[in-house]
């Protein structure tokens, strides 16, 4: 086991993938010499060369569009979109091309492309640098959408995403890049949880709290605080947003009878809505209270001096937990 920051864990995962498969490429803005604005690709160009770690021109549609072409030629490109809010110029290529190519070709074409996107707020950034656009992609058939929350998962999930024969949108919780965790960089991926499975990070009996990405840590802190009030919160890191691991979600709700979902993305038409609907369909008679959601407001992301109000924190999560006991 090694103690690594989350960003270094992704870096190590990318390095492993580059070593194991000569078809793996890294491409994006500033990913080469600079090592990316968050240094996630630090040192990779030096070790694997400019043909495999490609500093691209500054155009997101171009990055994804040419990655599709490289994948058609048999490569496995890993694209970096510098910030969440910069992915939109590439949305046509992602939604109309990348996601649909297998279907359109009736299975003749595979596009094993990974698109890494640092997402979420909490770093005091200017606008377009703190967004959570994951639902756009979860709503698009043909894409897998995942979010890592800790260093060990980051290391395994990036490699699993790269070996996936389907396109994966890989969300990285940017405000947790510097969080450290224990990572076994020697063990293979055989023991790793499959990419489409949710993970119970803290067992509990009174209420199920589902979240992903940057809020997993917040949820854990909330659960620890709730313990002092004698409440046992089960925290589940969803990890995969498309597909959702509905079995794990419902098994937990059947046990606890209460369900809260938290994410930074706006509550309206968010992942929480999907979970609420599925839980209601599958375990209606187990529910002691309605499914409650905590998340961003139905507004654009606010200026950073206001982001503490916008982002769900420990108190807002516990407020929702309290409310589920009001029924």
């Amino acid at each position: 086991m090694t103690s690594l920051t989350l960003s270094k864990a992704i870096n190590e995962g990318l390095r492993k993938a580059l070593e194991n498969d000569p078809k793996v490429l890294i491409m994006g803005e500033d990913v080469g010499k600079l090592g990316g604005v968050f240094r996630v690709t630090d040192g990779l160009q030096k070790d694997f060369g400019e043909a495999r770690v490609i500093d691209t021109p500054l155009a997101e549609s171009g990055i994804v569009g040419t990655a599709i072409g490289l994948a058609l030629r048999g490569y496995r490109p890993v694209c970096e979109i510098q910030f969440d809010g910069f992915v939109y110029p590439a949305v046509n290529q992602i939604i109309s091309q990348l996601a649909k190519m297998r279907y359109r070709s009736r299975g003749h074409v595979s596009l094993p492309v990974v698109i890494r996107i640092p997402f979420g707020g909490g770093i005091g950034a200017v606008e377009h640098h703190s967004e959570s656009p994951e639902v756009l992609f979860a709503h698009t058939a043909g894409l897998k959408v995942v979010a890592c929350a800790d260093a060990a998962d980051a290391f395994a999930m990036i490699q699993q995403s790269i070996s996936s024969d389907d396109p994966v949108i890989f969300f990285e919780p940017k405000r947790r890049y510097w969080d450290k965790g224990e990572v076994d960089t020697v063990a293979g991926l055989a023991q790793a949880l499959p990419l489409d499975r949710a993970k119970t990070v803290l067992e509990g009996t009174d209420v199920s709290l589902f979240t992903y990405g940057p809020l997993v840590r917040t949820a854990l802190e909330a659960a620890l605080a709730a313990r002092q009030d004698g409440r046992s919160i089960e925290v589940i890191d969803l990890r995969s947003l498309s597909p959702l691991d509905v079995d794990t979600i419902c098994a937990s709700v059947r046990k606890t009878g209460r369900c809260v979902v938290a994410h930074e993305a706006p509550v309206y038409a968010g992942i929480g809505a999907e979970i609420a609907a599925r839980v209601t369909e599958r375990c209606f008679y187990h529910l002691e209270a309605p499914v409650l959601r905590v998340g961003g407001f139905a507004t654009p992301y606010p200026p950073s001096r206001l982001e503490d109000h916008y982002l769900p924190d420990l108190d807002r999560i516990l407020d929702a937990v309290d409310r589920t006991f009001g029924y």
Partner: protein
Amino acid sequence: MTVESGAATTAAQHEQAQHQQAQHQQPAPEIVDQEGFVQLLTPEGERIEHPDYPVELSAADIRDMYRDLVLVRRIDTEAIALQRQGELGIWASLLGQEAAQIGSARSLGPQDMVFPTYREHGVAWCRGIDPVKLLELYRGVSHGGWAPEEHKFHLYTIVIGSQTLHATGYAMGIQRDGAVGGNPENPEAAERPGEAVIVYFGDGATSQGDVNEAFVWASVFNAPIVFFCQNNQWAISEPLEKQSRIPLYQRARGFGFPGLRVDGNDVLACYAVTQKAMQAAREGQGPTFIEAFTYRMGAHTTTDDPTRYRLASELEMWKLRDPIERVRAYLVRTGLADPGFFAEIDAEAKQVGARVREACRTMPDPPPMAIFDDVYSEPTSILREESEQYAAYLESFAGEATGENGGAGR
């Protein structure tokens, strides 16, 4: 002409006035005596030489091209008729663009990769795609569904210009495979013919961001690619003037690679310029932009009505430059083909037309559960659940008596 205004003006008057205004605003495009315009066969069927493009084509080669031109036009005519009869949802006609497509596509090697728009029926023909496969798409039976790598012909792309980036990425892959010829660092390259990519798009597409990004990428990475722009003068109803203030081929210079304009209705010239540009790309000399100056003689698609925005006289002018007539005139004039040859081709065209018609009319709809196929390499849990539920729903009707319209999923 003054446009009347006010409540008394009828829509018809207004339209007529606009139409007449349009006459003043849109002079017919000039195509002769343009600087650098490559032409090897005049509209009258006279062979002319160009110092940069000495083509070596046998009489048989030219007869083969004539055959291609006639057959793809026949398939196109058949498809339009099938749409009118309700057998196809829509069709995008290639009428008038046969030479640009056949000339360029016949110059390709089997190792080269092609990225088409949705109108490249002539190119598809040259890559061995069964025309019936194209009809599947326009009938709504599939989204394409041929194996791109097998034919080295990618799926039709409908969102304008998106494929130029795929083509550029593919060309970057050729570089990474060491499959560009003339690379001294790669000993294998000398024994290989070298590979390159050709991507097709239209005059309207040149306004798209993706196309301009593809130019930037191809240029800075020196990718082995040919950008083949069929300037058919019209992007649905918008004339070239709405896309560009300069001739399109001149755009290439700003991106850092050569551009040229060819008579897009001259199959020999299209063959020659594409062959040369592709060879340069295969040898590591980077991209070329080819503007094939042609004309969309039909509607944009079968849902379009060009009489609303362009003059019949323009079409008449372009009919004099028909891409097929000039080859026929050349073959007759030089005695390279006899009446028997033309009769044979006409008979074959009839046969191909009949086959396509029959295949289209008897094409079955896919089974309903095919909706769920090939979304992912393996169905996800969500998809499995939905498909099981829908199968059970369909199954629930199994016992019901089925009349003409009875039963779901039929």
